[in-house]
């Protein structure tokens, strides 16, 4: 009896070992053939639930280096040898700088589903140079006035001017970046091109900004904004959008983003291929995947921060699979949606300053913080 169990146990172990060896072989072979794709990106885009399926299908491992802010991204590119990054996810206003510095490759338009994009995203300004795209439009969002409903109603949030209301004294928060803040206040000042200001309008804008300083509770990063808005520490934060309030709303917080009458801004993220990348074929395949309906839905519902998407097929699939999310993000197919906001001229692109240097805007922001 015991003798028997021993033999069977031995047999069992032998069998298990053999089986493991058989099962493991393809994995080992697969791992040997696996390619690496390096990506420079904002946080959250290389989460397993976004890229897991792509990695599996193409036997690729995506190595993401995450950055915070376009300046840091450009510095990272400038300091790395050419070919370090295969794929670069960048904000639209920085694509121009990437292209001028020769950090990204020109792309072949036929490789990507530009025809499937809604018209306003097809020939996107700042992505195309001399009729050639250097970046593929991936996702976008609107920036307005994000507020905690308990402290500031939608009716109030219809104007940026509410931030000066005495009842919000010491209750206005700021995302610690000059561009969206100055852009929002520039809209309040009635500048049709909020980032293209002559000397007089620029001076007026810095005055408007300085007058808001007594209302300010604090200057926050991504995590700081989430907790300050959720707790009601701040009533409102200008120049941000669903990329913050969507995350909070998903967790049941009573916050939302309203696009004021004075207008809102649009942020845009796109994908490019790094100059002298040795994996350009794979990078292209990856970008194609992110623009397929499947990839589009994944990027629209990104855990780190949701966004709207440019492709019709993506919209169709989102409405099909997640009608609630399509509704929440204003991407419904039969009825008024986010595109109407753009077509009504209520949305301006977020851009780099046209007549002042970036440094001038940076200095104004630092001065504001130190006031």
């Amino acid at each position, binding site marked *: 009896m015991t003798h028997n169990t021993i033999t069977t146990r031995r047999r069992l172990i032998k069998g298990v070992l053999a089986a493991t060896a058989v099962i493991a072989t393809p994995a080992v072979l697969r791992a040997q053939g696996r390619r690496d794709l390096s990506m420079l990106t904002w946080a959250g885009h290389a989460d397993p639930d976004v890229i897991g399926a792509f990695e599996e299908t193409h036997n690729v491992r995506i190595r993401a280096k995450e950055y915070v802010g376009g300046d840091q991204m450009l510095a990272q*590119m400038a300091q790395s040898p050419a070919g370090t990054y295969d794929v670069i996810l960048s904000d639209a206003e920085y694509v121009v700088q990437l292209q001028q510095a020769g950090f990204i490759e020109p792309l072949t338009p036929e490789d990507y589903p530009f025809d499937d994009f809604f018209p306003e995203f097809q020939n996107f300004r700042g992505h195309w140079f001399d009729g050639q795209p250097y970046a593929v439009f991936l996702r976008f969002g609107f920036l307005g006035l994000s507020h905690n409903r308990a402290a500031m109603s939608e009716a109030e949030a219809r104007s940026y001017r509410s931030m000066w209301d005495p009842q919000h004294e010491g209750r206005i928060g700021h995302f610690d970046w000059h561009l969206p803040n100055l852009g929002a206040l520039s809209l309040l000042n009635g500048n049709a091109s909020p980032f293209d200001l002559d000397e007089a309008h620029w001076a007026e804008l810095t005055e408007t900004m300085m007058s808001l300083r007594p209302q300010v509770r604090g200057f926050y990063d991504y995590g700081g904004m989430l907790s300050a808005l959720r707790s009601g520490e701040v009533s409102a934060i200008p120049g941000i959008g669903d990329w913050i309030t969507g995350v909070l709303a998903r967790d049941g917080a009573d916050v939302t983003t309203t696009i004021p009458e004075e207008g809102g801004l649009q942020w845009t993220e796109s994908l490019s291929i790094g100059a002298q990348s040795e994996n350009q074929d794979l990078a292209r395949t990856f970008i194609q995947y992110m623009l397929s309906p499947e990839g589009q839905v994944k990027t629209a519902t990104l855990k780190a921060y949701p966004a709207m998407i440019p492709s019709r097929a993506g919209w169709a699939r989102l409405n099909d699979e997640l009608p609630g999310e399509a509704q929440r993000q204003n991407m419904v197919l039969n009825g008024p949606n986010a595109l109407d906001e753009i077509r009504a001229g209520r949305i301006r692109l977020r851009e780099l300053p046209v007549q002042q240097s*970036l440094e001038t805007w940076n200095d104004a922001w*630092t001065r504001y913080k130190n006031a």
Partner: protein
Amino acid sequence: MTSSAFPARTSGRRFHFLFNRAWQALWVLPLPAWLLLFFAVPLGLLVAISFWSVVNYRLTPDATLSAWRYVLGLDFLWASFWRSYGLSMASAVAISLLAFPASYAMAFVAAPRQRLILLGFAIAPFFTSYLVRIYSWQVFLTEGGVISSVVQALGGKGESLLNTYFALFLGHATLALPVVLILQTIALANVDRTGISAAANLGARPGAILFRIILPAARPGLTLGLLFAFLLSYAEFVSASYLGGGTFQTLPILVTDLVRAGQQWPRAAVVSLLMIASLLVTAFVTVLWAYREKG
């Protein structure tokens, strides 16, 4: 026989002498090496970088005064400098005063074994990440957080305490209080007991013993405690941004702002050098005061 042993003994003595020399040299050698490696070289690099320039987001060796001109030309620089300095000094004084009764108890009331256990408790916070400790303060201080809920339950307004000097001070204390406790306790525990006994035997009151015997004797250690609290608070960035909400613009926050805005490392280096210079002056003055001759 003895004559043959004699030279051997001298050579033995000589060997011994040389060995002692070598032994000492071995112990002395790291001092200049460490000073070079951990102090002189980084400081030299910082000075050098302050004269470099940034071209296309790339730090480029150069010999330009532009970073110095820019930083020293900022109209808010000195306001921020003194704000930063004043906040840290206020924190340092408050932390020292807070720590003193506890240190006194550990030095004069607790038995040596108890003192060890209590010091162990004082050091315990070092075992968790400082960042985690600051985040947990946020939970207590925020709107609807632990403290405001308790205050509201007692009928108060219970407003958030975040982004106030109080919150910033709590952050500074979290960082510096354990260090100050240890320094003060060691200073007080080393005060010569015979002087204290003599004064007591001659009928001195406890207050007089404290102010005329203990405090003067422990002055160097107590001053060092104050200095360390100041150093830690002055260079502190995490509390300033997460508990002060960036509304108290301190120099460390200015440093990060300068780096973020166009990777201006040279300008950040200038601000850092200003901070180092003011720290050195402060340290020099306090140490002079701590060790000045009683007269």
